């Protein structure tokens, strides 16, 4: 849905000005404020805030949007931002509103926000048209190689040297999010939302049951012992919630088990030099059998359909003892307007294999600039504003996850969001386990061979061994067809 930031800003300011003038006039004329009129404006304010407020309030988690009402003329600078649904969308709208206030030369920033599942296809269709319909794109890191390889996005370090902010401090980024924005040693993306896969757990439940809280290095066996005690469907409390709906996010959840099961290179899905499939070896068979068992035994009903909203809701409503999910989901658990478990959540990495090494996953969102953009320079400056030190500080205080080292060290951030420490541990765990999705321009094709067979294993259509063999065969054939694998 397209939302004009300028329109939201204009509506709010007009309303506030009219209201102020009304009160001032009433005072000057020495008569009481007309109650009916006052109530009318109060009514307008409530209605407008109902419609536009979430976008303007820092604690909002979603935006009710209206179509753009700012007509762009030739020569006007309107930045169109291809965004993805999620709590971050609201934080970005708040920042875009502030940016417009300070930059009257920008006519508008229009958000076109899409659900995650349609994000890649929508962005890619627009990019391949070469029409420049989007200027700025919120890009999931596995999508970047396809964009960069096709020449759809701009080199941020070479093509904007004359306007780049000298104080931007690229070196302040943590290496993991920085690498997420690169392809073939070229920086195509500004690191923005630096997600990892982490674990949230209910401290109060662990304490009530006298259990040791999980920490970095707690093994799957130790974790399951806790799950057995926590899982009580009769009381509507389930041991674990995790992404199980078919798709890449189900695969990344499984990968945290697979990658933790043994140290590299035995824990890899593919040999990253020869692209030979490795996921169906002994490590894979044990890991997948265990994962299926875990999903069957400790998840809420309807587990095969559980996705983002269902997972977060289960935690917020106090129906799950543990959640393995992307760290973007952590802030909504601490939001008192929607969560019943505020202050009761602990954060750590997902559990570890028998060798004590946990695995996580990097899932960084980066900002890329369309090569066909009509306003690349203005878009670059806006992206810089969103991701420079103060920008990412503001973003993180709103609830996002900036990937700058200065944020991880910042006392205000750490006091407000205690899960920042876990975030660093997750980055470390992902790096040690070499846990990355295949970084190829054809990422989505390759990962689908895993997605569908993993889903088939979870619904018992295939045994773990059959599913892994199918993943190996299908991905191997595909990688060969694409020219990455020989033999």
């Amino acid at each position, binding site marked *: 849905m397209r939302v004009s930031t300028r329109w939201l800003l204009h509506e709010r300011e007009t309303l506030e000005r009219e209201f102020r003038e009304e009160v001032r006039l009433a005072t000057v004329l020495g008569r009481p404020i007309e109650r009916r009129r006052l109530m009318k404006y109060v009514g307008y304010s409530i209605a407008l805030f109902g419609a536009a407020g979430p976008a303007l309030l820092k604690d909002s988690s979603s935006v009710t949007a209206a179509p753009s009402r700012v007509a762009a003329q030739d020569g006007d600078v309107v930045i169109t931002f291809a965004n993805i649904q999620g709590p971050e969308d609201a934080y970005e709208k708040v920042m875009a509103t502030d940016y417009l206030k300070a930059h009257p030369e920008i006519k508008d920033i229009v958000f076109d926000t899409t659900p995650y599942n349609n994000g890649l*296809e929508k962005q890619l269709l627009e990019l391949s048209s070469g029409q420049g319909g989007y200027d700025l794109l919120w890009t999931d890191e596995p999508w970047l190689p*396809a964009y960069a*390889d096709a020449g759809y996005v701009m080199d941020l370090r070479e093509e904007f040297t004359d306007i780049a902010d000298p104080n931007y401090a690229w070196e302040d980024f943590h290496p993991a999010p920085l690498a997420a924005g690169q392809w073939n040693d070229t920086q195509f993306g500004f690191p923005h939302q630096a997600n990892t896969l982490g674990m949230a757990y209910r401290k109060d439940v662990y304490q009530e049951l006298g259990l040791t809280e999980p920490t970095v290095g707690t093994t799957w066996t130790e974790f399951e012992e806790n799950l057995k005690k926590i899982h009580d469907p009769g009381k509507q409390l389930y041991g674990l919630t995790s992404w199980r709906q*078919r798709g890449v996010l189900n695969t990344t959840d499984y990968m945290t088990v697979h990658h933790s099961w043994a140290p590299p290179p035995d824990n890899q899905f593919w040999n990253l030099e020869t692209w030979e499939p490795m996921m169906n070896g002994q490590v894979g068979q044990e890991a997948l059998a265990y994962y299926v068992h875990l999903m069957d035994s400790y998840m*809420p009903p309807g587990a*095969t*359909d559980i996705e983002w909203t269902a997972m977060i809701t289960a935690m917020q409503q106090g129906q799950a003892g543990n959640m393995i999910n992307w760290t973007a989901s952590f802030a909504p658990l601490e939001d008192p307007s929607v969560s019943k478990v505020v202050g009761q959540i602990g954060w750590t990495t997902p559990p570890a294999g028998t060798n004590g090494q946990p695995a996580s996953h990097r899932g960084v969102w980066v900002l890329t600039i369309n090569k066909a953009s009509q306003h690349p320079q203005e878009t670059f400056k806006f992206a810089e504003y969103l991701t420079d030190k103060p920008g990412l500080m503001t973003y993180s205080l709103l609830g996002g996850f900036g990937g700058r080292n200065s944020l991880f060290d910042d006392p205000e951030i750490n006091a407000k969001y205690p899960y920042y420490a876990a975030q660093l541990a997750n980055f470390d765990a992902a790096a040690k386990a070499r846990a990355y999705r295949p970084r190829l321009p054809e990422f*989505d094709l390759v990962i*689908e061979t895993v997605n569908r067979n993993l889903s*088939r294993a979870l619904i018992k259509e295939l045994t773990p061994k059959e599913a892994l063999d199918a993943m190996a065969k299908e991905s191997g054939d595909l990688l060969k067809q694409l020219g990455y694998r020989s033999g």
Partner: protein
Amino acid sequence: MGSLPAPPFGGVGLGGGGMREATNTPVALPGVDTTSALPTVRPTPSWSKARRALGNWLFVLPAIALILTTAIYPLVFSLRLSFSRYDLARPRQIPVGLDNYRAAFADQYVHNATGNTAVFVVGALAAQVVLGLALALLLNMRLPGRSVLRAAFTLPMMFSTVVAAMNFKVLLHPTYGLYNWLLRFVLGDGFVGDWLASPRTALPTLMVVDTWQWTPFMFLIFLAGLQALPVEPFEAAELDGASKLQQFRDLTLPLMRNVIVAAVLIRLIDLLKIFDVVYILTEGGPGIGSETISFLIYKTAFKFRQVGLASAYSYLFLIVVTVLATLAVRVLWRKTASAKG
């Protein structure tokens, strides 16, 4: 009264080949002596015919241009794509001959989607015909509140499919959904299910949703057909002592054959192309348990960017739909012809 104004384009209308040429015969108007007032019209000269033809073409040209650009060109372009490898991220057409078609025949996921589509079409169509006919027969009888009921039964069809599917997504939720709550309340925990997430129930649940929405369409067509039936054969059968069942079997069904086949044909084509309900409710899952042909084509083209392969799937699918529709029409034509003797 003066002479009648001359018609445009040399005295003829704007139609095509079936136009009538102007003649010298005067038009007879009541109370008007047209024989002396009208001038004699001579045969149209050839330049005038050419002008007329040009005029006709000018009128149809926008429609032709529209069809060429929005229907014919995409069809030809996608046919060409079906013989190419074409990735949205690398938009170059690499000719691959019949490889995409060979891949389509060999791909187990195409076989799976074909099977799912067949099961879905047969199941949903059978349910919609039976329920639609039953409802039409019921509401064709003299019942109190019949008009209200007729209107009420057509309501589901008025919903956008997306809205209907989203409603069902909420209603069928395993934990918070109304249906499981009702089942648990009435029948106990043993009857509660993950309707959209279980491989055994996902496809049948999609059939139920589609049947809920589109049975009213069948009902409306069948009701119209029933109301158009002649009364006399039924009165004669009544006098001859035929039971209601016999009347239904030997009169209603044969007389309704054309209506039924037309309705089946429309729904058959719609069901073969089923996409929206699948997309919203299951995304083809769990596993590949509810992946239909249309959904597979969409995924191949837009999720996996293999536009050439998806075009080959589409052409094969187009052939299947055309063959099935033609067969259905032929069966209808043959049965109707033989019924007429």
